[in-house]
């Protein structure tokens, strides 16, 4: 029962915050609501018994990405212009609504093979074994640092002031 209430609270909070991000005129308020949306997603992860992922969500999204977004908003001084919609507002709404109905129709008309196995109490050790064992995901784990290194170098090169 507690899980049902928690799910609906998180779901309403996430959707409300996401709607605020897209509909609010003030960019700064939209960024703050984005943080609320990420918090709700972390709560949903906990309900899905993904404790490590919930911690990572809070660390990466709320700790790093939101700070980056807010810094970018401050650096570009576009707050004064707000976040108006462009001339594609109505077509975009129709596309999003059609997509939403289609996907929900597909979800409700599929026979999912639900497993009755109970999930483990914690996922951290299982994730570690999966990620670093020989027949696990060690190759993607080796490739990701290269991606991150390229990201760091690319970001530094892009924002470097070339006029000097």
């Amino acid at each position, binding site marked *: 029962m507690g899980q049902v209430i928690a799910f609906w609270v998180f779901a309403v909070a996430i959707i409300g915050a996401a709607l605020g991000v897209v509909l609010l005129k003030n*960019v700064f308020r939209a960024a703050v609501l*984005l943080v609320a949306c990420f918090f709700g997603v972390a709560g949903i992860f906990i309900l899905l018994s993904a404790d490590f992922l919930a911690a990572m969500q809070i660390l990466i999204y709320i700790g790093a990405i939101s700070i980056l*977004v807010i810094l970018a908003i401050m650096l570009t001084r*576009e707050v004064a212009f707000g976040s108006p*919609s462009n001339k594609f507002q109505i077509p975009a709404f129709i596309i999003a609504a059609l997509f939403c109905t289609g996907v929900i129709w597909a979800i409700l008309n599929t026979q*999912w093979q639900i497993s009755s196995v109970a999930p483990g109490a914690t996922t951290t050790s299982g994730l570690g074994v999966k990620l670093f064992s020989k027949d696990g995901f060690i190759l993607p784990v080796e490739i*990701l640092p290269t*991606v991150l290194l390229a*990201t760091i170098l690319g970001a530094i090169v892009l*924002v470097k002031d070339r006029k000097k």
Partner: protein
Amino acid sequence: MTIGLEHYLVLSAILFSIGLYGALAKHNAIVILMSIEIMLSAVNIALIAFSRFIVPAELTGQIFALFAMTVAAAETAVGLAIIISIYRNKETIDANKIDLMKW
């Protein structure tokens, strides 16, 4: 009433559609990037819900979500760097006025 897989998937679909609308209908490039972040979060919810309800002992969906999160962080960093670079050169981040590669 219990919360099943369908609830999480419908939540994920609604969240993805909201992000899609934001990415299509906004002027400000930073708001477009924020909408893309919302879409990526929706996909993570779907991945973890599949992992929890269909293969609870395998954890593969969670590992995929972990990789998606890392790549999303990298994407945000580069995207914001590009936006700041464009702002330096053109004094605007209005996606409709950034038409350098349009002919």
